[in-house]
């Protein structure tokens, strides 16, 4: 028995309809694949972004807010860790290293982050060009920040998003002055007459560019933490006149900090440090752990999305099935003629099943690259928005999803096949 020539003829009979059905299957497959691949890309991308942040110590507050501020450089309000305590954390000998993070200023769309040269090296694994900052008015920029080595960058008070949204940084500063929030918690330089322009700090000069990290830090301008402190008239952590940057700082001169990143020497040290700084005065957490908690919440949303996707796929398949039944009704005479010529029932059954199966398989195969392309597009859009590199790839789960759709299609193909199988020959010939 060989139904292939007959199936080929059937497929060639209504090529537009066949292509339309296959395209609908492809869309159904692509929808599921895109959602699944995108969700994984989001998880992997965000996890990769947090990879270099082993332990974060900060003032008590929302860990999610701190995660968003320190890792994803999103504008959130965080309390300052008091200077003496920050000094103790930074000097802790159980950490391989500890780096301060200070934020709240911006250059164009780029957040300006104050930290140490060591942390820059830790984050990007060396520089792509130039050298690290050695003076308070020097900066290392992320891989995606525009500007040549030696160029001066104007630094503006306030986060880029606030500035873009038209918020007055000074007013914001005043509004939060009494709340001891980091970015607006201290007198603005302009209020003390340190700047001609009330919204700007001193320019910094680019001395180096980080290697791409695939994180929002690729869009950051990284300056010595002393620059941020100084711009906010908090001192530098060093005696007056001392132009050194970086540790050690003097405990009694140490300004507050919104966050400190610690790299413990061992797993035991990591848990020890977390316990040590999880007190009434400070909080300590593993960003990876906080992300996992977020994923758990996201997981519920993902399940809902996948459920909706599945419902959409079922609707599409049902619509296709109805269409196929209508098309096959128009072909009933062809099947009856085959039977009159001596074709057994199972021949027409197999022919119809193959006819539908080819459409489903073709559609699903086309859906794989389509879904991949859709997730690439969404990834690019989200990456542009967040700065986090999302690499959407087709994995086993997407292949399994497409396989499941194909399997469901093969099973559903039994319905029209069974219908034609049951069709009386004489009725078809009339």
């Amino acid at each position, binding site marked *: *028995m*060989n*139904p292939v*020539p*007959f199936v*080929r*003829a059937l497929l*060639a*009979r209504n090529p537009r309809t066949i292509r339309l059905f296959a395209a609908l299957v492809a869309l159904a497959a692509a929808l599921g694949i895109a959602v699944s691949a995108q969700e994984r890309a989001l998880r992997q991308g965000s996890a990769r972004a947090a990879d270099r942040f082993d332990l974060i110590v900060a003032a008590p507050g929302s860990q999610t807010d701190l995660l968003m501020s320190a890792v994803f450089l999103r504008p959130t309000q965080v309390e300052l860790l008091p200077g003496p305590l920050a000094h103790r954390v930074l000097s802790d000998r159980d950490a391989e290293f500890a780096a301060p993070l200070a934020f709240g200023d911006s250059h164009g769309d780029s957040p300006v982050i104050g930290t140490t040269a060591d942390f820059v090296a830790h984050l990007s694994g060396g520089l792509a060009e130039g050298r690290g900052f050695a003076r308070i008015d020097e900066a290392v920029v992320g891989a995606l920040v525009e500007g040549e080595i030696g160029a001066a960058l104007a630094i503006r008070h306030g986060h880029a998003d606030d500035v873009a949204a038209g918020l007055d940084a000074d007013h914001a500063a005043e509004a939060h002055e009494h709340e001891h929030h980091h970015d607006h918690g201290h007198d603005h330089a302009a209020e003390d007459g340190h700047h001609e322009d009330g919204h700007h700090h001193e320019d910094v000069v680019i001395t180096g560019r980080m290697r791409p990290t695939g994180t929002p830090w690729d869009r950051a301008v990284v300056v010595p933490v002393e620059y941020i402190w100084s711009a906010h008239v908090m001192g530098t952590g060093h005696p007056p006149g001392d132009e050194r940057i970086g540790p050690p700082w003097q405990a009694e001169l140490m300004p507050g900090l919104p966050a400190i990143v610690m790299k413990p020497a061992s797993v035991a040290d990591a848990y020890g440090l977390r316990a040590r700084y999880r007190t009434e005065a400070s909080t300590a957490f593993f960003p990876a752990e906080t992300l996992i908690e977020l994923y758990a919440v996201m997981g519920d949303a993902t399940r809902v999305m996948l459920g909706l996707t599945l419902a959409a796929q079922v609707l599409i398949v049902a619509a296709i099935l109805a269409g196929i039944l209508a098309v096959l009704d128009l072909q009933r*005479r*062809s099947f009856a*003629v*085959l*039977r*009159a*010529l*001596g*074709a*057994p*029932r199972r*021949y027409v059954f197999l022919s119809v099943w193959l006819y539908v199966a080819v459409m489903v398989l073709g559609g699903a195969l086309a859906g794989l690259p389509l879904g991949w392309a859709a997730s690439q597009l969404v990834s690019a859009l989200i990456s542009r928005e967040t700065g986090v590199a999302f690499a959407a790839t087709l994995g086993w789960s997407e292949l399994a999803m497409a396989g499941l759709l194909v399997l469901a299609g093969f099973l559903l193909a039994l319905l029209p096949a069974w219908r034609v199988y049951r069709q009386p*020959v*004489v009725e078809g*010939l009339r």
Partner: protein
Amino acid sequence: MARLSVRGLRHAFAAGPVVALEALELEPGRLTVLTGPSGSGKTTLLYLLSGLIRPQAGAVVWDGVDLARLPERARDRWRRGNAGFVFQDFHLLPELSPLQNVLMPARFAAFSARRHAGRGAELLRRFGVPDRRRVALLSRGERQRTALARALLLDPAVVFADEPTASLDAAAGRGVAEALQALAAEGRCVIAASHDPDLIALAGRRLHLEHGRIEVFA
């Protein structure tokens, strides 16, 4: 060589009795034409004789095989091995070539039709069908002759034809009628339902039906 013997054949649809035939004997080597007005039961009788319809009563015996007693699968098999069918509207697959159409019956039982390709090509030559790429490019007469070649691929002893010339012009119809007569002359039992005077004129036997009954047996 196939000999038909029909006894006490009765078959009725919901609308009323369609075919009632007490007895009928047909020998091989003759072209038998069923005539009669529309609705007289010609096509239904063809379907009963070919096993497409199982009669409610009576026997349709071909060389000792009573189709009326066979299950559908066995009737399919009998038709595949013993009968060819020609329809008024050809019912070819326009997407395939004439030869691929002719080879269709061979694919019902075997994966490859290669064994029959030579005979298929020979039949097309015999009926003067050009070797075109697609059936859609053939004239109506050529299409019906392709259908004839398809019916003959497995060398059946019986050929059923339902209004085989009704869709053709006079010249093409005459050609198909002569071809059917020639098939009968080869020793086949050829049974055709038709209104075509040319085909009727060539018939070795004519059965005229009125309300499902044979009125004239000539």
